[in-house]
């Protein structure tokens, strides 16, 4: 990719992704409107979220067409975030448990 000829793709793909993002946003809003609760709610929210995020990153931000070197640069560090989330979820559960015990006394 030189500075003059950059990312160029048919305009149709942007319009399709745009439409998909609208539909997915409407779906995630519908999850709230229709009062879907519990695990189904969380699963649906996550599915729509990851689909939207994926479309934005791969198509709008052109990551699909980038070289592998850049993809690794962008995605390898995210492992650290995943580890942080797991650790903090465990820590949060633990704090909740100790608080429950403390407030019960």
């Amino acid at each position: 990719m030189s500075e003059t000829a950059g990312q160029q793709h048919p305009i149709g793909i942007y319009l399709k992704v745009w439409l998909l993002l609208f539909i997915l946003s409407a779906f995630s809003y519908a999850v709230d409107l229709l009062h879907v609760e519990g695990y189904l709610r969380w699963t649906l929210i996550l599915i729509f979220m990851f689909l939207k995020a994926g479309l934005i990153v791969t198509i709008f931000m052109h990551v699909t067409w980038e070289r592998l070197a850049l993809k690794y640069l962008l995605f390898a560090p995210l492992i650290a975030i995943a580890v942080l989330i797991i650790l903090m979820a465990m820590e949060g559960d633990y704090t909740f448990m100790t608080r429950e015990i403390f407030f019960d006394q």
Partner: protein
Amino acid sequence: MTIQTDKSTSYTEPGIEGLVADWSSDRQTFDLPWGKLMMWIFLLSDTFIFSIFLTGYMNVRLSQTDNWPNPSEVFALEIAGQHLPLLLIAIMTFALITSSGTMAMAVNFAYAGNKRKTVILMTITAILGASFVGMQAFEWTKLIVEEGVRPWSNPMGAAQFGSIFFMITGFHGLHVTAGVIYLSIIARKVARGDYEKKGYAIVEITGLYWHFVDLVWVFIFAFFYLW
């Protein structure tokens, strides 16, 4: 000190000079305009900031023993007697997604060499971004003045709700505001013809930042407003 940037010799240089030579050749590692690579690295660091905010929110929400206020009700609007949950947030989401679409098209037209359409689409993107910030200002005012939400307390439940809300949406709003300013500056420079010789990679770089702001909103919308 002479810095070797030629690939064939850079890996044979010993010591500090070799270290400098190895890193000097990173332009060849990433075959991109340097500004685009720098933007990607900045966005990666921003990803960490927002991830840490959202992880902190998860930790606080998991460990609190009070009732977490229901965002669907907190952000509901009453219009003509109709109770509409999360309406403003939905409109803000659509405004941001639309602006991402116009930005993607602006990048496309910039590389196609269509200056006029690029400037128009970037301006629309900036206007949509500004309207997003405006709606957010309205939302904040409503929450502070009418609902009495403060960073340290609120009438609906867990006190942590306010601090998390103001911190995360505030930081995101700051990014949108910066993006609107950034877009306006670049759109003006495109219109003036500053990039006719240099090429239009700058529009793509601006676009990366803008799409990232939209991307962060996707996560905030899911985890804060819908969860």
